[in-house]
């Protein structure tokens, strides 16, 4: 079976300045891959290039096969056709990931209707409404009937991120890209959202590309990890291997720092 995502030798330039250089990664169905590195290391840019949505002024070269189709150099209207089924994204800040002036239920319904149109199905209002409630229950949002009528500012951060996940699920993607999905949440909510993501990815047999700077979070969410530094891939391997016996000095530094942080907390307790 073809990979959901296959990036080869991806290089991203902005004003002749390389931001990402020579990154390769592949992701098969059901596989969970982490992309870690500090801010500005090119994690998010790599993800944006993977879905063909780089900001204006940036150029990508190399090869990005999303669901077997070349994204680099393709026209936007050609990508629009398959991107919705191939991939969905979850962002760091769920408040900006949801339209502030649209009720949650309507936002999820919009994705459902778009999927139906794409598949050439006609769906009734009641069908959509029922599927919205089912999705909201799926991501463990309490009292879906009531929350479906709520605006994003009327929900908590955790609920908003759950709603964003429900929207991502609504398009039935084969690959889920999560860009720091738990960073804006408090630690307990973080754990719950991670668990939810893990369950959903397993049950739907989706691929997961998980972007984060938070090592323990990445460790809990993925099987394989790639370490990015200043736009270059410095290390790659299974979680236990990379975190247990980091080879590259940078990774060693990252792991040390995370460990020192844990010790500090342990000492304080």
């Amino acid at each position, binding site marked *: 079976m073809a990979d959901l995502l296959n990036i080869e030798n991806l290089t991203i330039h902005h004003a002749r300045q390389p931001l990402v250089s020579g990154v390769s990664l592949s992701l098969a169905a059901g596989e969970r891959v982490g992309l870690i590195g500090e801010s500005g290391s090119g994690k998010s840019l790599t993800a944006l290039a993977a879905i063909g949505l780089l900001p204006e002024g940036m150029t990508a070269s190399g090869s990005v096969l999303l669901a077997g189709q070349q994204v680099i150099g393709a026209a936007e209207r050609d990508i629009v056709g398959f991107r919705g089924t191939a991939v969905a994204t979850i962002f760091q800040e769920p408040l900006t990931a949801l339209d502030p*002036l649209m009720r949650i239920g309507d936002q999820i319904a919009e994705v459902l209707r778009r999927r139906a149109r794409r598949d050439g199905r006609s769906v009734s209002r009641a069908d959509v409404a029922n599927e919205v409630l089912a999705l909201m229950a799926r991501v463990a949002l309490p009292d879906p009937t009531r929350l479906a009528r709520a605006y994003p500012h009327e929900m908590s951060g*955790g609920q908003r991120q759950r709603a964003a996940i429900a929207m991502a699920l609504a398009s039935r993607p084969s690959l889920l890209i999560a860009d720091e999905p738990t960073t804006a949440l408090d630690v307990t909510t973080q754990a719950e959202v991670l668990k939810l993501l893990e369950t959903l990815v397993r049950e739907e047999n989706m691929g997961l590309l998980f972007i984060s700077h938070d090592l323990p979070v990445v460790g809990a969410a993925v099987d394989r990890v790639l370490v990015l530094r200043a736009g270059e891939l410095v290390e790659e391997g299974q979680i236990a291997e990379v975190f247990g016996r980091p080879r590259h000095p940078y990774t060693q530094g990252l792991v040390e720092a995370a460990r020192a942080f844990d010790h500090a907390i342990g000492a304080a307790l």
Partner: protein
Amino acid sequence: MTDATPALSPPSSPRLTPAFVIGATLVGLHVIVGLITLFWAPYDPTAMTGGRLAPPSLAHWAGTDRLGRDLFTEIMVGARIALAVGIGAVAIAATIGVTIGLLAAFASRTVDDVLAATLDILIAFPTLLLAMLIVAASDGASLGTAILAIGIAASSIVARLTRILARRVLAMDYITAARVSGTGWLGIVRIHVLPNIWPTLIVNLALQFGLAVIAEASLSYLGLGAPPPNASWGRLLQEAQATVYTAPFGAVAPGIALVSLVIGLNLFADGLRDVADPTRRRR
């Protein structure tokens, strides 16, 4: 469940501030008066019905002008003209302005830069000068040329505001999410951009309405608006200027009408934001 949140209040109704109520009442009064003149007025606005420059009396509530026409009737008809110009100009400004603003927001950087620079030049261009050019280019001053001139002048301001507001919305993650799931740019405009810029835009359009009313009065004052015998407030003010010391009410009455409508529109605009934006309803 750690997700438990502050209990949701049921969808609340818009908060009506006193300023909004006063504004809406003032504007409402002018609208009602303007509508009444379509069917009835105390006198024929062009007929000489009393002595010249008569002071206010029971027969003539605001007195008469230098030709003996009933001022109150003329002011009532003037409300209709002011509102017609406001509606027309705002409709033109909204149509042209929002379209250009959205195009600029979606355009590539080069096209956007050109549009933004053009808008800045247009904004620096005085409305009155633009109106004169339009009048000169057409057959002569009329209500139509006044509406067109004011509408075009205001559209550059609306376009610039739309562009900035739309850019801010387009930078949001929910736009990226919508694009990922396959929404085209028209869909993004309809579903996300317009609803999100609407609360700010509608407030600005209401303010533009007030400015259009003042601009119309200025144009008619200069003889560039609706030609006589149309009873525009600007024309009434201009005619009363010569006799302002002997018959001050001729200038005061249309002045009160003009100021009350513009203040009403501004108060209305301020309150409108709370009504249009659901995130501001509950505080």
